[in-house]
């Protein structure tokens, strides 16, 4: 076996060109942060932005190809490309949103953007992993960067607490994941995803090595933490609330997308033979996740915390597509993640822009009368909230329609019914924000809003995404469907 025969300028590097690009920009931004002084350090953000734009370029050569590189460590296929595009879009929007936000909060230094770039590279590595070790590598690159980002507001006790909590629980989760991988290796003797599948395809294997089921469970726990599935969601509200808003948006969309990419890869490439064992389990997890997320969100008085619980609920909806475990279901998961990225980053962007230095203004009460104080921001927020609630003609509706149709087609009628009832419940707390924005008089003397051109651009792009996927979803659907044909 030719171990690590690398084709330096060709196929192998093309497979990780985007990751490498982001990594080099991360290093560059880090250096630049040292060179630039004082206020000018915020220019590192523009460099990072440029990095994301450049990272789209390798797509030109990569689209339509499918092969494994670096001796089967990473894979370049439509599935990984789909997620890479999603992660780039998310990263681009997050950096755009951060430009003025970080300046306002006094965290606009090179390290911030370097960490965002690093985390994105880690996410992409996860999406392109063909091997359990690569997957873990990607996960850790992403996670460690995010731990640091969550606590980057050093003077803010809540931010530090968030980072600490996230780090401790995340470390445990990584432990579970690693242990799951180890048990899988112990029982199958393989770490490469396709090889695992090949071993498990022999029916007798399961009876002689039932340990693989324990491995499966531990993998699920590990991914469950990253995805904030109930009952592994406990860290989410505190971390989402404490972290800088731009990073919360990043966690809720990017981290989730990457973790779903990993989960899809592992479960559908390596473990389809165990489908009978995990389907019912995930059914329960999906229902618990959406129901608990929605019910607790009903009672939140802080918009950021409410969105944290709502993101738990959305992970539950996405799991519905996963449980269906058909091609339709997997495509629905991909489409949902894209739609969710637009609407959620949009909502967090509005939350960020409504705050001021030292006054985040994230309480529901602070939103009173925003509809008349900041009419444009409020309209954008309303669109994002309606989309999160799944009301047409927005991306959120199409996404829900897709996952629930996958469930119905696979015969999971009850799952679909529970899902749609959940989205009716969820409408209540999304509407509540609108009630405050439009139906209440503004609070006396409260200063809200922080002008940000870049933030406005991020919101506009998110709005475009919400309507594009809501009204003309055909192209994205085709893309999602093509991307899941690798399984």
């Amino acid at each position: 076996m030719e171990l690590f025969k690398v084709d330096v300028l060709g196929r192998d590097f093309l497979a990780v060109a985007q990751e490498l690009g982001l990594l080099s920009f991360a290093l560059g931004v880090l250096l630049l942060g040292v060179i630039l002084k004082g206020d000018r350090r915020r220019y590192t953000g523009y460099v990072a932005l440029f990095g994301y734009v450049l990272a789209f370029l390798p797509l030109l050569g990569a689209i339509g190809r499918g092969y494994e590189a670096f001796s089967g460590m990473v894979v370049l296929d439509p599935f990984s490309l789909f997620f890479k595009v999603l992660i780039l879009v998310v990263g681009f929007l997050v950096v755009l949103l951060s430009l003025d936000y970080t300046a306002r909060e006094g965290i606009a230094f090179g390290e911030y953007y370097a960490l965002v770039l690093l985390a994105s590279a880690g996410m992409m590595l996860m999406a392109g992993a063909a091997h359990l070790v690569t997957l873990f590598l990607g996960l850790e690159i992403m996670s460690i960067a995010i731990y640091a980002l969550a606590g980057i507001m050093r003077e803010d006790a809540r931010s530090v607490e968030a980072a600490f909590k996230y780090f401790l629980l995340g470390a445990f989760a990584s432990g579970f994941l690693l242990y799951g991988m180890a048990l899988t290796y112990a029982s199958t003797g393989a770490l490469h995803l396709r090889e695992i599948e090949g071993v498990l395809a022999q029916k007798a294997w399961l009876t002689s090595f039932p340990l693989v089921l324990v491995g499966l469970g531990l993998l699920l726990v590990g991914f469950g933490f990253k995805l904030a599935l109930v009952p592994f969601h406990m860290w989410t509200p505190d971390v989402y609330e404490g972290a800088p808003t731009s990073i919360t948006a990043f966690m809720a969309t990017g981290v989730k997308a990457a973790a779903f990419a990993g989960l899809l890869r592992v479960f559908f490439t390596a473990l389809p033979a165990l489908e009978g064992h995990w389907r019912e389990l995930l059914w329960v997890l999906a229902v618990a996740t959406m129901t608990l997320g929605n019910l607790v969100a009903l009672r939140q008085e802080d918009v950021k915390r409410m969105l944290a619980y709502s993101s738990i609920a959305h992970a539950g909806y996405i799991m519905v597509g996963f449980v269906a475990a058909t091609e339709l279901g997997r495509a629905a998961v991909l489409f949902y993640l894209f739609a969710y990225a637009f609407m959620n980053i949009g909502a967090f962007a509005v939350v960020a822009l409504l705050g001021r230095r030292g006054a985040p203004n994230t309480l529901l009460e602070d939103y009173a009368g925003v509809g008349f104080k900041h009419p444009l921001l409020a309209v954008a927020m309303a669109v994002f909230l309606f989309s999160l609630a799944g009301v047409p003609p927005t991306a959120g509706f199409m996404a829900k329609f897709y996952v629930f149709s996958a469930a119905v087609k696979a015969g999971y009628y009850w799952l679909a019914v529970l899902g749609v009832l959940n989205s009716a419940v969820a409408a209540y707390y999304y509407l509540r924000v609108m009630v405050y924005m439009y139906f209440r008089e503004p609070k006396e003397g409260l200063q809200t809003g922080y002008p940000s051109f870049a933030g406005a651009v991020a919101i506009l792009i998110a709005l475009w995404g919400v309507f594009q996927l809501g009204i003309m979803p055909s192209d994205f659907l085709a893309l999602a469907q093509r991307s899941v044909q690798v399984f």
Partner: protein
Amino acid sequence: METFLKIPLLSVVTFLPLVGALLLLFAPREREDWIKGFALGVTLLDFVLSLALFIYFDDGVAGMQFVERVPWIKQWGVSYYMGIDGISLLLILLTTYLMVLSILSSWSAIEKGIKEYMIAFLLLETGMIGTFCALDLVLFYIFWEFTLIPMYLIIGVWGGPRRVYAAVKFFLYTMAGSVLMLVAILAVYFLHAKATGHYSFDLFALYNTPMSLKAQLLLFAAFAVAFAIKVPMFPFHTWLPDAHVEAPTAGSVILAGVLLKMGTYGFIRFAIPLFPYAAHKAIPWVSVLALIGIIYGALVSMMQDDLKKLVAFSSVSHLGFVMLGMFAFTVQGVQGSIYQMLNHGVSTGALFLLVGMVYERRHTRLIADFGGLARVMPVFAVFFMIVALSSIALPGTNGFVGEFLILLGTFRSNPVYAVLGATGVIWGAAYMLWMFQRVMFGPVTKPENEGLSDLSPREVLTLVPIVIMIFWMGIFPKFFFKKMDLSVERYLRDVKGRYEMVLKAEEAKAFVARSQGARER
């Protein structure tokens, strides 16, 4: 006829208000008169265009007309499929007609955010017309759900003191019902695809979906609950009084006039023809609930001390008639049912307008605060009288034609229901006339009422078209019926035909089972 001067007329009528709303976004906020005038212009133009639909509509054709069909989401088999028959044609006209009056009635009643208000109304118009035209289930669902957003805002921003409660209740009730319908839509879609191998949300293709009787009953129930909430049928009506009382006048007019009709229309176009067997099985259930609605709505109306609540509960009663007629499954019953939808839109819309006018003057709607208004506001009293009589269904007014046909049609299918329903007419007369007496006649007891001004020319202009419609529809019903005769006949033939087909298939199955059983023995 297919395309009028090659213009996709149906899409133009549907989306013109949306375009108007988008243009209004850029209007300067201070130019209030300009904004109002623009919104009025858009709705008027839309009304004129819908008249063109009426004129170019061919009475001799039973099927869908002005059909437009473009593939939309190919992967799912969703198409932009619009078309109207005689039933939807009349409802579209009702919508565009009431929209003009609603905008007129909002001229002085709305004090804040007139721009957003008009935008919300125009968006609502697009949603409503689209709901009546859509022949693709996904397209229909999108229009149907979309109407929630503007109505929610209209009630919540420009409504009365308890507007937040009413708005949220309205939204959640309707949404809870319709999400179940969404699952049912998906189920029909996949059942159809399984049987034919063809993925499509085309309504007429789905009409012929083979399914088990149990599936029919379950899916019909999911559709029926969604529509029954919208109608609203007893016991799903509790959102209605809240929404009506808190909504601004024009919101109530549209809510009663059009949004409720989306529920009854949903039964005729979707729930019944998709599941004819289940619909026939549901006749006793729906009829009894409709009768309860008729009588309960009327009795509760009688007990109201607030004018708007009275009108709101009278809607429950009137919509009970619509449902009763529809589930008679006779030509008269269904025609009466559709006619009653229009009548209710005109006369209840007018009642809300009138209540709104008196509320603008007195800032109260309590019946006890009035009395003797006929002496102070004679013109108002005359209009009120005509509208009240139409609501009571006096011969010569539109209400009579509708209720008479419904009772006739119901009598032919089930005399007991008809007799019980007829008592509702009496109750209707009782609460309406009693209210009229307390508000209009007698001496002026309250000094505040002495100086009330009579109707302004703008208000008269709002009401005259309604009075014209009341008598026109009452005296020359043929003018409207000829548009829907063929459509209704075709609808009934189709529904009954497929119902009997299911019955025959069941009989055959039972026969085979019996003979097999005999052979085995």
